[in-house]
Structures are given as C-alpha cells and as structure tokens.
C-alpha cells in the first residue's frame, strides 16, 4: 500500500474533515459568546 501524503486522497479527506470541524467549532464558539452576553445582560 502506498504511504499517505498530504496531497493524496487521504490528505484531501483529512482537509475536508478539518474544515467541517473548524466550522462546527466556530459555531459553538459563537454560541459560547452569545450565552456569556445573555448572562451578563440578565
């Protein structure tokens, strides 16, 4: 089996997964900030 490389098929799959994960992370991060703001306003 050929070794995995960043530019190979597995590299692309990893990159797409990382982009999806970063999007999810940013969404939760924004939720975190919104919750903190609501707590402050209460």
């Amino acid at each position, binding site marked *: 089996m050929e070794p995995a490389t960043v530019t190979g098929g597995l590299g692309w799959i*990893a990159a797409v997964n990382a982009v999806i994960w970063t999007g999810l*992370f940013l969404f*939760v991060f924004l939720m975190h900030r919104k919750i903190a703001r609501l707590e402050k306003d209460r």
Partner: protein
Amino acid sequence: MKPTTLLALGAIWLSITLAIFLAFLYAPPAKNFIGESSRILFFHVPMAWVSSLAFILAGVASVRYLRTRDVRFDHQARSAVGLGLIFGVLATVTGSLWARVMWNSYWNWDPRQSSIILALTFYLAYFGFRSAVEEVEARRRLAAAYAALGLIVAPFLFYIAPRIAGFTLHPEPILNANLKVEVESRMRQVLLLSSLGFTAFFVWLHILNCRLLTLLEARDAKSLS
C-alpha cells in the same frame, strides 16, 4: 472571555484538528481490516466512549438531584442525556459505515449494535418522560429516578452485555477482556489524542448547555411572574 478559557478552547480545536490529520496521514491502516476502513476507528471509538461517559454523568447528576433537589443537577442530567444521545447516534452511524465496508451490510444485529440501539432507546424515553409530566417538580423527580436507573442500564449495555454474548462480528474492544490495550503504537497515540479531544469538546458543550438551560429557566420564571 478569560485568557485561560480561550487557551482551553484553542487546545480543544488543536487536539481534534491534529487527531483528524494524524488519523489519515500518520496512523497505519490496521491489519485484518479492508482498505483504509480502520481509520474510522479514531472517530467511532471516542464517540462511543463520550456517549457512555455522558450517560453515566447523567446518572450521577440525577442521584445528586434526588438527594439535594438542587435544580442545577437536573440541568446537568438533562444536558448530559441530550449530548449522550447525539454522540451515541454518531457512534452508531460511524459504526454502520464501517460495517458496510467490513461485513457488506450497514446493520447486522451484532450484540454491540443491538446494545447501543437499546441504550439510545432507553435514553430517548428520558425526554418522553420529561415531556409527559406537567408539574415541574414531579417531572424532575421522575426524570432523575429514570436517569439514575441508567447507572445500571448504561454500563450493562455498553460494557457487559456485548462481552457476555456468545458471538460477535465486532473486533476486540480497545480495552480487551484482559484489560489491556493491544493496538499498534501509532494508532494508540492517535486514538488517545482523539479521545481526549472529543472528551474535552463534550465537557465544553455540556457546560454551555447547562448555562443555556439556566438562562431558559430564568426567562420562563420571569415570563410567568
């Protein structure tokens, strides 16, 4: 936001991002697995682990609620059950994708597949109980008693039932019957990083969810008064 919080959140992002790249580019494919299918292990195992952790946490919080009647424990239990269900569904989906490659079928009624479906059904009923009772205190007590029962049901379904079943297609669990982790060292490193990352991500979601439930309760109390 405090610098320590930002640092902790950065560590969560970094650990899972690293785990993703290492899972595909560093860890070797496992022996006796078809093609690259073993790489799903680095996501499937942490999802199942976090799901069982969440259900146990919900049970502990429920017992504490029954003892103290402190509403924060009810929020903790409710949040943990919800997140446990999400991670449990993700574990089931990743497991099914892997089963399609290895066993040529998404679903085989393997003991592990059966036990996770039973566990998810059990915890789905938790929300059924919650929505069935009008009176708030009674709802909390009933839900807490039910989730406390999960302290027996969840470990049995996740850890005991699949091991006492006489047959399985599922590979040896990561922590095998001799309580040893017999996995190739690079795979073990990635699995450990991934498990730590997803556990930390769960803790973050759980804290946020509890804070959100407190806010919602305060809003409801305000609108009633």
